[in-house]
């Protein structure tokens, strides 16, 4: 396979001016990720600061109702309340090893921005976060949170003033600040080597889950379910099971309201292949190759592209990708809160909703693991706004 590609997906579709920092990053990954000092330091931080390993929780009440065994990988219990921190801590540490003094990041709803600001504060790096102006208005609390952590938040007024434009702006900033700054990209998207780097750092989820489910059940699960926006939590839990063909991998995309003609974020189900943000992957776009706005009730799934490796998994059949609509996700949000006392993020609620749809369709001894990628406290404003 061509370097930086997953089948026909991936690549490095970036301005020539970004080739040197991408090459520098690739070299740093080769040098440090497998180095034992780096690994030890990362492990210590993940244990004492992030709170890993996160538990694998058995949903007793829901399992009884659904007729199969339902498990949750509790990424919501990681520091800052989501899996995002696994990636930002790893990248911030790598940036330090590379001798960089600053991080730049994009953020949509603010989760990755908060996780980057957190890692930067802890490791003593400067941090600047680009955020669509529309999102700055919608997510005021997260803006305050990032600022409290010492980051500078830059509203982006170009384009649709949302996540995709924040990524454009972060890339532009990186072009002119590459000597001192590492671009801490928030998902398994973007040009090579980012999809590999973020997958590597998020794979801790799947490695832990594999060990935990074996310990608790003596075997591997029949199915793993995770929500997919850019796809980092899904890739993190899928990848360590890639070779275990008996484990079915299911990614869940956000279908939006489901009203015909309305915007959504179901890139793999309804998109077509093209190039955005440095990578060849499925996209939501017009016939003429202009990028369409996306939408989901879950801000973290609201992205018109998807990680290139997911595009590859879809086309080669290793994973399948399903659609859950806003209303189903919302219903799962209430169900998990009331039946298990866990308030899930609206993103993760999409994965939970798909598991709930399986009621009566699996056998009594089937085990299903849902990656509960984040906690839902951040979404109370959205949910109460709808009531």
């Amino acid at each position, binding site marked *: 396979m061509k370097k930086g590609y997953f089948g026909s997906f991936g690549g490095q579709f970036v301005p020539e001016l970004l080739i040197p920092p991408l090459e520098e990053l690739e070299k740093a990954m080769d040098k440090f990720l497998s180095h034992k000092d780096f690994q030890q330091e990362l492990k210590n931080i993940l244990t004492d600061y992030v709170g890993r390993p996160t538990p694998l929780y058995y949903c007793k009440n829901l399992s009884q109702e659904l007729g199969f065994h339902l498990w949750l990988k509790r990424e919501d219990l990681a520091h800052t309340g989501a899996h995002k921190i696994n990636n930002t801590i790893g990248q911030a540490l790598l940036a330090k090893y590379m001798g960089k003094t600053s991080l730049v990041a994009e953020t949509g709803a603010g989760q990755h921005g908060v996780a980057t600001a957190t890692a930067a504060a802890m490791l003593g790096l400067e941090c600047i976060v680009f955020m669509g102006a529309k999102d700055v208005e919608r997510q005021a609390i997260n803006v305050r949170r990032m600022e409290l952590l010492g980051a500078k938040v830059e509203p982006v007024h170009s384009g649709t003033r949302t996540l995709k434009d924040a990524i454009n702006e972060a890339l532009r900033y990186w*072009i002119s600040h590459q000597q001192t700054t590492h671009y801490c990209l928030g998902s398994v998207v973007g040009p090579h080597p980012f999809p590999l780097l973020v997958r590597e750092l998020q794979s801790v989820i799947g490695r832990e889950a594999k060990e935990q489910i074996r310990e608790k059940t003596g075997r591997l699960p029949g199915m793993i379910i995770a929500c997919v926006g850019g796809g980092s939590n899904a890739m993190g839990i899928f990848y360590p099971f890639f070779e275990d063909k008996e484990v079915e991998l299911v990614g869940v995309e956000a279908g939006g309201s489901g009203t015909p003609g309305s915007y959504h974020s179901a890139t793999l189900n309804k998109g077509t292949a093209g190039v955005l943000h440095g990578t060849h992957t499925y996209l939501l776009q017009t016939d003429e190759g202009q990028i369409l706005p996306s939408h989901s009730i879950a801000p973290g799934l609201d992205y018109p592209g998807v990680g290139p490796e997911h595009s590859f998994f879809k086309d080669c059949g290793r994973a399948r990708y399903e659609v859950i609509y806003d209303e189903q996700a919302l219903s799962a949000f209430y169900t998990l809160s009331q039946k298990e006392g866990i308030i899930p993020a609206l993103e993760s609620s999409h994965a939970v909703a798909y598991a709930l749809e399986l009621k009566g369709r699996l056998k009594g001894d089937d085990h299903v693991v849902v990656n509960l990628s984040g906690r839902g406290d951040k979404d109370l404003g959205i949910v109460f706004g709808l009531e």
Partner: protein
Amino acid sequence: MSKQGLRDKIKQAALKGRKALIPFLPAGFPGKQRFWEEIMMLDEHGADIIEIGVPFSDPVADGPVVEGASIKCLAQGVNLEWIFAGLKEYRPKLTAEIVLMGYFNPFLQFGIKKLMAAARETGVSGFIVPDLPLEEAKPYLGELKAQGLEYIPLLGLNTSEPRMEEYAEMDPAFVYMVSVLGITGSKVDINQVLIEKLKQAREIFSCPIALGFGLKSPEQLGTIGEYIDAVVFGSALIKHIEEGGTSNDFMARWG
């Protein structure tokens, strides 16, 4: 064919004792009809090569001026079909060479084969694709060459010598040196780093060198004139037109 055409244009300018002038204008700017009038004006007033921008929703190498203009063009329904239809009508009246500058995705969705055929048919000499670096361009170079079309590489202040050598092996019609580590419309600082890079490029490339990004007027060039053969200007021209000017009086600055 296109290669020689582009090089000849640059050479003719040199014979007249000036740098070749390469204005950039996004297709459909400042309006669909006015755009072609501006192109005609650029052609009449000394443009040697004209870069027509193919608008894209997410132009990552561009600053706010070009992005803003591109988005306005998209809102008017500008697309490659419209550009080629216009070129069919206006290209025969132009003496400048035409290149298309655009991001890869609109080209990819149009279809690369269809794109090359339309380019040949309408007298386009080549392409500048800011998000298609060497490795990603390679699969298309053979076909481009077979069709007599040019891929014009962009180089940066941070492009290494071995990488420049790889670009040189493609024998491009000319290369486009980006004057800053930044985006279009950035503030340019004519400094030693740029001069050294241009000197290095001179040694490696036998083809002409164009300089672009952030150029506003000839005075800016100062002492670096001797290391370049052509200048590209986009953001400054767009701003000039937005402020009520025309291509005509903008070009007069460079005459």
